[in-house]
């Protein structure tokens, strides 16, 4: 997905004179060609996330479209207020593309984990959140939305789905129809969800745009009143919006990153296993929902 990010953004920079790329001292080698070709619009801005976000807002004040890229925890938590005030409150437009969401940097430890990037940004009205499940998803969703109004957060992931389906910004995909429960799989969790419910009579909804949330598609596919939401970060980001939109009784289970410090290292797969991001655990939870 990171390679796709470079390919997609390189192409956009080449064709859209209004775009400006700001790298937080990562991905510099990948963009070496853009640095040479467009030195006035491609910057290794340095390790200063607060000023970077405010400067990006300033760039947009002159009509340019900023694309900021660095590590998830630093570009969401450290400069949360800059995102809130400078983009959200001021109604400015721009893009943040992160790497290292949740525990993608597992071996680097807690300071590099960001299981709260999406949840905290969802507290800022108007911020749009995109969690692609494949490189192709990123390419498509970024091209569709990068020049829209407002600020968007794109969360690149180290892991990708094998399953491919065309995606549209702001739209959920119904992958499988069933009667006894519904599973929402966000971004890279789709593959696991599909394997987990292969022999179960359940609906599977694939979500790549977390905000604006496609409540129309979701609520139209909740006839069982039983829902499992699988999110690759702290759970609960979309629960309230679904509950408000759904007219009826809803039993919801969540599979997300638990709210505790993840002090172990290892690999992201190790963390997945310990936290229950496995086909087996999803299968168990869905069956439990069905038989309640």
């Amino acid at each position, binding site marked *: 997905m990171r390679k796709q990010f470079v390919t997609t953004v390189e192409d956009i920079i080449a064709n859209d004179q209004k775009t*400006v790329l700001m790298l937080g001292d990562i991905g510099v080698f990948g963009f070496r060609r853009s640095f040479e070709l467009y030195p*006035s*619009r491609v910057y290794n*801005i*340095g390790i*200063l996330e*607060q*000023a*970077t976000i*405010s*400067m*990006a*807002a*300033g*760039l*947009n*004040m*002159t*009509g*340019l479209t900023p694309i900021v890229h660095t590590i998830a925890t630093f570009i969401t938590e450290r400069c949360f*207020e*800059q995102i809130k*005030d*400078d983009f959200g*409150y*001021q*109604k400015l437009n721009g893009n943040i593309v992160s790497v290292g969401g949740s525990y993608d940097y597992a071996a680097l430890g807690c300071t590099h984990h960001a299981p709260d990037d999406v949840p905290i940004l969802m507290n800022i009205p108007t911020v749009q959140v995109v969690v692609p499940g494949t490189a192709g998803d990123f390419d498509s969703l970024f091209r569709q939305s990068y020049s829209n109004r407002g600020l968007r957060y794109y969360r690149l992931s180290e892991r990708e789905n094998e399953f491919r389906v065309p995606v549209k910004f702001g739209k959920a995909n119904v992958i499988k129809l069933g009667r006894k429960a519904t599973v929402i799989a966000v971004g890279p969790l789709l593959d696991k969800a599909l394997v987990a419910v292969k022999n179960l009579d359940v609906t599977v909804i694939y979500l790549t745009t977390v905000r604006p949330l496609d409540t129309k598609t979701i609520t139209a596919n909740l006839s069982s009143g039983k829902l499992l939401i699988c999110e690759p970060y702290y759970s609960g980001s979309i629960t309230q919006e679904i509950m408000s939109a759904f007219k009826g009784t809803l039993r919801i289970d969540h599979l997300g990153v638990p709210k505790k410090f993840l002090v172990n290292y290892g690999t992201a797969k190790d963390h997945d296993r310990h936290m229950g991001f496995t086909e087996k655990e999803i299968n168990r939870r869905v069956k439990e929902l069905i038989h309640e």
Partner: protein
Amino acid sequence: MRRKNLNNLRKTIVEAAFHSGEGHIPSALSILDILWVLYGGVLNVSPKSCQSISRDRFILSKGQASLGLYAILSEKKFFPKREFKKFGSYGGILGGHPDMNKIPGVEASTGSLGHGFPMAAGVSLGLKIQHINAKVYVLIGDGECNEGSVWETALIAAHHKLDNLCCIIDHNHSTDRALKVDDLEEKFRSFNWKSLSVNGHDQLEIKKALMTKHPGKPLAIVANTIKGHGIKIMENNPAWHHKAPTREELSQILQELI
């Protein structure tokens, strides 16, 4: 340029604060001479050109001094003076901190310190990228210089040689009791800015400083000011930092401003 007595603007500020029970009056007064000079011929902006891409920009990073900016903008006819009657009210456009989406002439919605300065640097960079020959002025407070983002910006603005950016530091010693920030002229110089100091209440000196050429570098002007300047009971009196005058105090102040 002639020195201008700004007592009519001081009166506007104090009366707005009195009627609303809100406002950072001394902070507004310490920057009044600077803003008067900026909007009195330095800035290439007017009510008609305030949406033009080639206009000069002014960003008040220390947003709590909003009443000072409002007084100048209304004097220059960016919006009608009657808006002051609704200062701080639910339906008014003028709040304790400025909102760029409500007030004509306001370039940024500031209030949280340390935001306006890097936004101004972003605007400067954006203008340079697009080869637009306009200048960006930003006013920060010395208390605001406690914020790390100020020094992030000082670093990056010099690195990118933003010589279309001028940062004015309102050095009114408001933060001395907490975290004193002295030698500001030298600090900015050490970040590779062209840096100088002025008497922030001498309009002629301010004008001369703002006209300083600074090719290849951003310009820092440390304006030595008095918090509450022009109203004796407020000058350097921390009790007035965020306080509206009583009716008796208002009467006394208006006598002084005649």
